């Protein structure tokens, strides 16, 4: 089967790559664009490790066919912040010692960033449910909640 040309915007840059018709958006990001920050933990939308922003909304990129992203805006963890210029959420995750094995972290951060965009001052309960689609096996979530709460204060303050 012939490959398809996928044109979309990824991390604010226009991108055009050839993808297989069966490639998921996650496959296209990881295998065709070299953006390996989003992880595949299950491939069935249950773990959240592949979370990216699709037109600003958090989605499981393993559940979307790559060609469905044509003309849309995608943001991955690589487009959230960079070493040396971290997003406040990333800063807070480092400071609170959140990452252990680290595999879930890109997905959790993208879910949390989308939450803060929609709701700059979430309650603890709202944070809890905001990242409930992201499984983590190492941290027990406690330090994540503290880090997101702190970053929420920082980002909300920055905007106001």
């Amino acid at each position, binding site marked *: 089967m012939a490959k398809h040309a996928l044109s979309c915007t990824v991390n604010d840059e226009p991108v055009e790559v050839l993808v*297989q018709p*069966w490639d998921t958006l996650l496959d296209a990001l*990881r*295998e065709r664009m*070299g*953006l*390996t*920050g*989003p*992880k*595949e*933990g*299950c*491939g*069935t939308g*249950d*773990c959240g*490790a592949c979370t990216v922003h699709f037109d600003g909304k958090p989605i499981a990129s393993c559940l979307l066919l790559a060609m469905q992203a044509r003309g849309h805006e995608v943001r*991955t*963890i*690589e487009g*959230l*912040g*960079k*070493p040396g210029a*971290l997003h406040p959420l*990333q800063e807070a*995750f*480092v*400071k609170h*010692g*959140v*990452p*252990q*094995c*680290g*595999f*879930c*972290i*890109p997905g959790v*951060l993208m879910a949390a960033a989308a939450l803060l965009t929609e709701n700059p001052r979430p309650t603890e309960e709202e*944070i*809890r*449910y905001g*990242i*409930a*689609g*992201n*499984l*983590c*096996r*190492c*941290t*027990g*979530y*406690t*330090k*994540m*909640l*503290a880090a997101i709460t702190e970053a929420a204060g920082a980002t909300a303050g920055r905007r106001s």
Partner: protein
Amino acid sequence: MSSVMKTTRDVKGIGLSIVRPDAPDKVTGVVQYVADLSPRGLLHAKLLRSPYAHARILKIDVSKARALPGVRAVLTAADIPELKKKAPTRAHAVLAIDRVVFAGQPVAAVAADEPAIAEEALDLIDVQYEVLAVSADPLEAMKPGAPPVADAGTEADTSEAQAHGSVAGVATEAKPAKAVNISQQARLQRGDVAKALAESDVVIEKTYRVPMVHQGYLEPHAVLAQWDTAGNLTLWSSTQGSFNTRSEVADVLEISENRIKVIPMECGGGFGGKIRALCEPITAILARVTARPVRYVMTRREELEAGMPAPQVIIRLKTGVKRDGTLMAIEGEAILESGAFSGAVLAVSGVFLASLYRWPNFDVKGFEVLTHKPSIAAYRAPVAPQTIFAIDSHMEQIARAIGADPVEFRLRHLQREGDKMANGQPWLNNGAVEVLTRIAEHPLWMKRAEWKASSKGGKLRGTGLSLGGWLGGLQPTGATVRLNPDGTLQVLTGQVDIAGTNIALAQIAATAYGVDIDKVKITTGDTDVAPMTGLSAGSKTTYTVGVAVMQAAQNARNQTLEIAAKELEASVHDLEIDGGKVVVRGVPNKGITLAQIGKKGNLYMSKVEPVLGISHPAFSVQAPAFCAQLAKIEIDPDTGELTLHDFVVVQDVGKAINPLAIEGQMQGGAVQSLGMALTEALMYDDKARLTNPSLLDYRKLTSADVPKIETIIVEKPAPHGPFGARGVGEPPIVPAPAAIANAVEDATGVRLTELPLSPERIALAIANGK
């Protein structure tokens, strides 16, 4: 071994909550796991797995798969000369030969240009099976005449128990005739149990069940294999122990160990499930056959169906006590369902059942039973949570039956340092009493009666606690510490850092040498360059590798001081390291910088030896580590829904080298423990096929399910640990199932003995009033 190390001044090292240096890479997606590697010419592997738990393979036709464009290799057992019919371990059973013994066992392997092509090729392989009767239940499998799992003559595999080094001196017994699926058996006995039970006032008998559960690491098993033309193999592996992986793969492939280089990649969680080789041998063989790099990444479904989960554990306990609380006897049976291959850690269970508390008479039997399910492996404190669920639930019920305070009752009978364990070894220094005492002082425990009395709206409120622990792991290890020409330190071990141990090791090196942490870099080397290093498992990384790093740093410090003594024409005893300089005590302007000493070790024509501190210790003294947990809950008796309001973890860590990292361990372990208590179970049908092979149906706890976990660190120094530290990883996964079950009884008056404590089970038990 001296463990108390004094530095000449306070350095930025031990005891500080220092953020691990790889954290920025982990929050930006920069850090690389095996599945992120794509070398030129990469092929993708997929395995065809048996749909049946027990079947004879009559015929495999791979011709259509081989003919598919893009397919580079299709292998069956017939193509692999190293395969033996009697596979002693799961790793040796690379592909099934003539019989499959669990659903999900690999029967054929494909390497192709794209994962989708490999998957299509699997569909084109035609396997004819003759389905055989299964042993799906361990109690049935123990009976004579049950369908046999192992080939006759296969030896029990005790390497897991040895790897964890947890319990010595438990004799294994010869197995009874005809019980073909009992692969290991042990018995611990003292006194006259029958007589003591007859003389008891209160006898309680219960059977506790914990199903198979999965370790649940987020990163599935993954490996990348590549051979060079000289016949050397490189494996990029997600492993908890690169030297262990190397040994197992060398053994299966029948090549020498120095021809294999294992590069331990970032490990996306292990928890015991990434100790034993699993997909490394078949990936290496595919790479050899194709002469291309081959990457294999398990799917989540494969992980759940054919990973290496924790055993199902069924424990029957019968205890007798006097009305005044005097312990009389315990009789017990622990059945560990090991799946299709032997490998359970049998002895931990027996020792905790018979000798966590002071039973004057005991008779505890342990059985490892094979069934037609995936073979098991370690899962964080293997078998301890299941065992503590039984014995702690039981202690709570005894205390209630005789009207004793549950904490005082446990404290009264808890074995102390020097008391004999059931295997004849003495209990070593530990903080069991301290953590139990500390948690009983917690306001949530002090106010438990008020919480219970505040029940309203038909809901029932309760509080429960539990005490559990881990005997501590040991394994020889090694480390080097070098002084660089700029005065910085370079620490090298082979230790895979999953939990944040590298920052703790760097803190130990900084303190032991006498420099600040920012002058220390720690590297995890591959098996070609690192000193032999043990597994990252069994709560022994900081305890053992920490000693190696501490001694290597002391060794480097001594070498540094000797060089400085010559240069400064001073006695070594008058020297100290301060602010990156070796100075003569009391003469602050007489000194030489560490950079000057480091440079002399790397100067053309220099006669000064480079500083290279080395330590490669072996160990004989474990450091048991205990944890107490408290749960404050509320139950809706109509639906059985359990709401966890508060959860407290009190743990003895010996010495908190890095409190931030330790809190993370305590919180993560507690939530795994709560998962075992509340939601997790691998569920099998009567044909031994998994009925919940997805993370939708295998329910791990989410951020919406658990409260913030409160952590309280207790420090009772371990006499042989580095700076007094003891292992931290295992203890927090142990107590929650019993703590929750005890809280449920406090709230509802019913006692549940089978995990998980699901809403259905709770509601039914309340409805049945038991």
